[in-house]
């Protein structure tokens, strides 16, 4: 019950993106995993599941604020259920995916309703009611957001685990194996999207360089970050020097 209320409120408040990249970070699976883990008494497992779900959505951005998938809803439902039913992180990822899709639908409903706020503001502008405009930009969207976003997460976490557990008891072995294969491959989507967003074909060798540096030398991620920063700096500086000679 505590968990259901907490996750419902968390979804509502963080998905509003209050404080642009501040609220956004709270809405991410790997971050929400910590409070969920604390409530459920298993931080390490919660972090592992959160990390796995996060990877799928790593590269996703929302051009024109059109969410491709709702990682907050995915995480807030998949992490608690995975912990309650002892799922592996790979399995939890697959459970998360449909909720990520459902979240997009919720967001579309929300932003359709928000259109009316603009018309409110138009009227306030005529009478110089700046306070009214401020309310239309902040308080009313929060109210709308609560009505739309609290109930689904609350209900899912109140009843979800039992349903999923019952389901898992009856499905055959090959499906479970297939789902964990999918869990291993799904992060590839996150990385592919990032390559796509950065969008410079000529720079793709840097991706391959990073990939095989880790495959062959098995360096950890901090080492990779240090090498990567040096390589990026060197490349930019060398380009500049070349440009300087020409000019």
């Amino acid at each position, binding site marked *: 019950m505590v968990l259901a209320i907490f996750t419902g409120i968390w979804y509502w408040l963080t998905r*509003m993106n*209050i404080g*642009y*990249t501040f609220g*956004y*970070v709270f809405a991410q699976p790997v971050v929400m995993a910590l409070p969920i883990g604390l409530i459920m008494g298993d931080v*390490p*497992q919660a*972090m*592992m599941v*959160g*990390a*796995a779900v996060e*990877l799928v959505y790593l*590269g996703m951005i929302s051009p*024109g*604020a059109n969410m491709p*998938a709702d990682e907050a809803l995915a995480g807030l439902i998949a992490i608690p259920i995975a912990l309650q039913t002892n799922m592996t*992180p790979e399995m939890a990822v*697959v459970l998360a995916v449909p909720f990520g899709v459902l979240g997009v639908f919720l967001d*579309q409903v929300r932003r359709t*309703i*928000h259109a009316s706020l*603009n018309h409110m503001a138009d009227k306030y*502008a005529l009478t*110089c009611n*700046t306070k009214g405009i401020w309310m239309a*930009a902040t308080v009313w*969207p*929060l109210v709308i957001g609560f009505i739309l976003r609290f109930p689904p997460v609350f209900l899912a976490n109140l009843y979800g685990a039992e349903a999923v557990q019952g389901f898992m008891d009856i499905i055959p072995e*090959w499906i479970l194996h*297939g*789902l964990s*294969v999918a869990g291993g*491959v*799904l*992060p*590839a*989507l996150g*990385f*592919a999207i*990032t*390559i796509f*967003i*950065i*969008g*410079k074909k000529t*720079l793709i060798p*840097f991706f*391959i360089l990073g*990939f095989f*540096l*880790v*495959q062959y030398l098995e360096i950890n*991620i901090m080492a*990779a*970050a240090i090498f990567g920063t040096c*390589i990026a700096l060197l490349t930019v500086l060398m*380009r*500049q020097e070349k440009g300087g000679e020409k000019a």
Partner: protein
Amino acid sequence: MSDIYQESVKSDIKLTKKDVNKSFFLWWWICEISNSFERLQTLAFCACISPILKKLYPDEKDLSEALMRHLNFFNSQGIWGGLVHGITIAMEEQKARGEDVPEEAITGIKTGLMGPFAGIGDTVDWGTWKPICFALGVTFASNGSAIGAILPFLFTIITLIEGYYIWNLGYSLGQDSIKTVLKGGWVQELITGASILGLFMMGALSANFVKLTTPLTIKMANAEPLAIQNIFDQIAPGILPLAITFIIYWYLKNKGQNYTKILLTIIIASLLGALIGIF
């Protein structure tokens, strides 16, 4: 006479650094809250500069016009789009002082710049800083460490600092041509550098996190069965995960960005593969 009088009164209005910074933080807090299909970030734009407009236009009629002017469509990216806000504030300040800044010029600058800067912002912040900061978090979290939930806030810190400077840069540029900024070249260099780092890190991370192997074997006449995975590993380790990443990339590039379809395809293909025993 009356004209001169009016102008000297209006020229008293000056924005302080505090006014400009306050509007930035207001924007930072609310820019996405009221996002709608009809006008996206418009409402947030108007709300965050309304204190400034109120200060600049003591006259009700002017204020009302200014508010309506900024309820025209606006959508950019929260951080880099701030350059547009900064410029807009500077232009409004000049207009309020009685200088000849037509309404069309303000709206024109806004609509002209919001697109390009959204593009830069999406690439630098969402395409590069975000995956790097979160990937660092994921690396710790996948070992069960709570630090993984803290590290992503690096992204908040980086973008907050970035946004603060960009907003103020926009303000100081004021009426100057925006081309001088873009020509300076540093924006391009920053994007290239960030892109290289981003791609490199994504490569390094996908080596850790994308997992795909095959249990297939080839039966040999008088020897141990030959595991196909071993052959792959001898060619180059991680060839299957790398291949699947680039197949998805190719799909995104050529067939469109329908993420849901890709997600479902991966799940179905994995299930089928598991059923017939190739994964």
